[in-house]
C-alpha cells in the first residue's frame, strides 16, 4: 500500500519538502468550506481515534458547541506511554507537518483558537523537532493571526509532560496542562462540556489528527475504502519483542496479525524460527492472545474484539515459546501499580496487591488459591474506578490467567516440588 502517514520521502519534515508534495493544500481547501462541512467530511470518512479507544473522530468533534464567541480548546495527545507503543514519535520526527495541518483543520472545524500538543517529557528531543516545525508553519502564515488572509486565527503550542503515564488519560492530561498534578477528573462533565480551564475541549491522539488532511485532500469516500469499512484508514502498527524486524509499520487496517509478525516486509518472523507463545496486540493493557489462536485475527477493532482483545494503540508485543509469562505479567503489574495516581482505592490498593501477588508467583512463593485470587482482585478493580487505568491494570491479569492458567499453576507446583525435595 502507498504510505500516507509516514511516506518515504527524504526530508519530509521540512516545510518546503512537505509543501512540494501537496502539503497545506488541505488547509487551503478547508478555509473555503463551512466548519460543519469539515466535521461532516470527517464523520463520513469513518476515522476512529488512534489513541486506544477507537472513538469516531467526527462524532467527537460534533459534541463541541458551535460558534467562536467563547474560548474552546484542542488538546493533542502525544503522551504515548502505554508500554509497546512508539508510533507518535515517528510522526514527530518524520512528518510533523501532517499532524500540524490536521490540528489547524480541526481547530477551524470546531472554532478553536488555541491547541496544545501534550508530549511526554522523555521526548525532549522530539519536542524540539515539533517546535521547529511549528515555527516554520507560523512563518508561512499557516498558524497565527488571520491564517492565509482569512478571518480565522489559531495558535498551537507544545506542552512537555514530566514522566507520568496517567497524563495520557484525557482528563489527567488537561490537569497537567493547567499546571496541576495529573489526576483524572470524574466524568461527567465530559471535556466537550467542561475541559481545559472549564471551557469546551476536544482531545485527540497525534496519529488521529494526522489522518485529517488525507481525508480533506482525497475525500471521505476515498478514505473510507482504505482497510476495513468499520475501522478504516492507514494505521501505524508498532511491532516489538521477539521478532526479527521490530519497528513501526504503516498498513491499512485489517492486515492479518500473523502476517504483521511473520512477513519479511514487517516483523520478519520470530528469531531462531521459534514458535509464538503469546501476543499482546495493542499495548500492555490489551488482553493477551495465545500463539495458536492467531489464525484469522486482523489488526482492526472488530476482528480483535472477536478474538477477545482490542486494537488499543496497535502496539504488538510478541513472545516466543521460551518466554516466562509469569515474569512478563509481574512486570506489567509493577507498571500499573507504579503509574496509579492513587485517587481511588480499588486502583491504588488493588494494583499494589496484584503486584505483590505476582511477585510471589515469580519467586515460587504463591499458593494454589492465589491463582483465583489474582483474578478476583482484578475483577474488583475493573469498572470501579474514576478512570480506565484501573481497567488497564485488570485486563492483562484476567487474560493472562484465563489463557495461560497452566503457567501460573506450574509456578505453584514447582514450589511444592522444591520444598518437598
Amino acid at each position, binding site marked *: 500500500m502507498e504510505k500516507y502517514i509516514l511516506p518515504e520521502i527524504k526530508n519530509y519534515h521540512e516545510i518546503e519538502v512537505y509543501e512540494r508534495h501537496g502539503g497545506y493544500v488541505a488547509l487551503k481547501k478547508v478555509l473555503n468550506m463551512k466548519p460543519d462541512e469539515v466535521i461532516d467530511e470527517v464523520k463520513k470518512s469513518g476515522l476512529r481515534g488512534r489513541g486506544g479507544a477507537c472513538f469516531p473522530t467526527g462524532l467527537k468533534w460534533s459534541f463541541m458547541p458551535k460558534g467562536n464567541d467563547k474560548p474552546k480548546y484542542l488538546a493533542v495527545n502525544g503522551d504515548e506511554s502505554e508500554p509497546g507503543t512508539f508510533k507518535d514519535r515517528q510522526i514527530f520526527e518524520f512528518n510533523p507537518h501532517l499532524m500540524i495541518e490536521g490540528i489547524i483543520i480541526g481547530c477551524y472545524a470546531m472554532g478553536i483558537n488555541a491547541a496544545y500538543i501534550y508530549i511526554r517529557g522523555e521526548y525532549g528531543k522530539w519536542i524540539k523537532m515539533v517546535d521547529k516545525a511549528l515555527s516554520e508553519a507560523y512563518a508561512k502564515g499557516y498558524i497565527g493571526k488571520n491564517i492565509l488572509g482569512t478571518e480565522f486565527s489559531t495558535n498551537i503550542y507544545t506542552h512537555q509532560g514530566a514522566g507520568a503515564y496517567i497524563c495520557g488519560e484525557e482528563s489527567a492530561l488537561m490537569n497537567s496542562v493547567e*499546571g496541576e498534578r495529573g489526576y483524572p477528573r470524574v466524568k461527567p462533565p465530559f471535556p466537550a462540556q467542561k475541559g481545559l480551564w472549564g471551557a469546551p475541549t476536544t482531545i485527540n491522539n497525534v496519529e488521529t489528527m494526522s489522518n485529517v488532511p488525507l481525508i480533506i485532500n482525497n475525500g471521505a469516500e476515498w478514505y473510507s475504502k482504505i482497510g476495513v469499512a468499520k475501522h478504516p484508514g492507514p494505521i501505524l502498527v508498532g511491532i516489538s*519483542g521477539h521478532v526479527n524486524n521490530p519497528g513501526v509499520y504503516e498498513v491499512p487496517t485489517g492486515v492479518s496479525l500473523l502476517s504483521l509478525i511473520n512477513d519479511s516486509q514487517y516483523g520478519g518472523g520470530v528469531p531462531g524460527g521459534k514458535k509464538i507463545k503469546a501476543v499482546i496486540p495493542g499495548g500492555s493493557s490489551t488482553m493477551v492472545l495465545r500463539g495458536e489462536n492467531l489464525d484469522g485475527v486482523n489488526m482492526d477493532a472488530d476482528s480483535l474484539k472477536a478474538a477477545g482483545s482490542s486494537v488499543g494503540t496497535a502496539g504488538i508485543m510478541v513472545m516466543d515459546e521460551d518466554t516466562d509469562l509469569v515474569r512478563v505479567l509481574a512486570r506489567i503489574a509493577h507498571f500499573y501499580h507504579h503509574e496509579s495516581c492513587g485517587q481511588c482505592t480499588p486502583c491504588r490498593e488493588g494494583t499494589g496487591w496484584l503486584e505483590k501477588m505476582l511477585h510471589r508467583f515469580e519467586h515460587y512463593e504463591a499458593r494454589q488459591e492465589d491463582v483465583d485470587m489474582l483474578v478476583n482482585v482484578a475483577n474488583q478493580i475493573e469498572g470501579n474506578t474514576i478512570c480506565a487505568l484501573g481497567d488497564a491494570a485488570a485486563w492483562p491479569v484476567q487474560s493472562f490467567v484465563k489463557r495461560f492458567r497452566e503457567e501460573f499453576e506450574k509456578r505453584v507446583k514447582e514450589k511444592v516440588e522444591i520444598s518437598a525435595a
Partner: protein
Amino acid sequence: MLNQENLEKAKALFTRYPEKKAALLPILWIAQGQEGWISQEMMKFIGDLVGVPYAHVLGVVTFYTMYNDKKLGKHHIEVCTNVACLLRGSDKILSAVEKACGTKLGSTSADGKFTISEVECMGACGGAPMLAIGEEYHEHLTPEKTEQLLANLK
C-alpha cells in the same frame, strides 16, 4: 533562582495560556535545565513567579517522576525494563550498566559521575533494549555496546 535569561523565557510562557499557573510545568523544566535539579528555594521562587503556594509546586514536583528534587550524578542513566525491553534482554543491559558505572540501580556512583534509574517504557520498544542519557536515546543495545557507550562518557 532563575538567571536573567531563563526568567525572560519563563515570563514569555505566560502568553501561551489563559492562566499563569499553566506555565508551571514548563517553568520547572527551565529550572531543571539550569540547575540539574529543583531545590526548595527554587520551588518557592517559582511559586511566587507563577502565583501558587510553595506546597502546590512541591506537590507537582513530587508527582512527576522526571523532576528531580535531589541532585543527581553528572550523567543520569535511565534503563528501561518494561516488557518489550525485558523480552530483549534488559536484565543484561542493567547489569552491564551497574558494572560500568560501579554502582547499583537507584544510586549515584561515589565519584558523582553516574546515577542509575530504572524507567518505565520510554516509547522506544522497537529499539529494545534501550537506555537514555539525558535526552539521548540509545537503542538496540548489547552489553558490549553499553559498556563502550558508558566508557566514552567523560
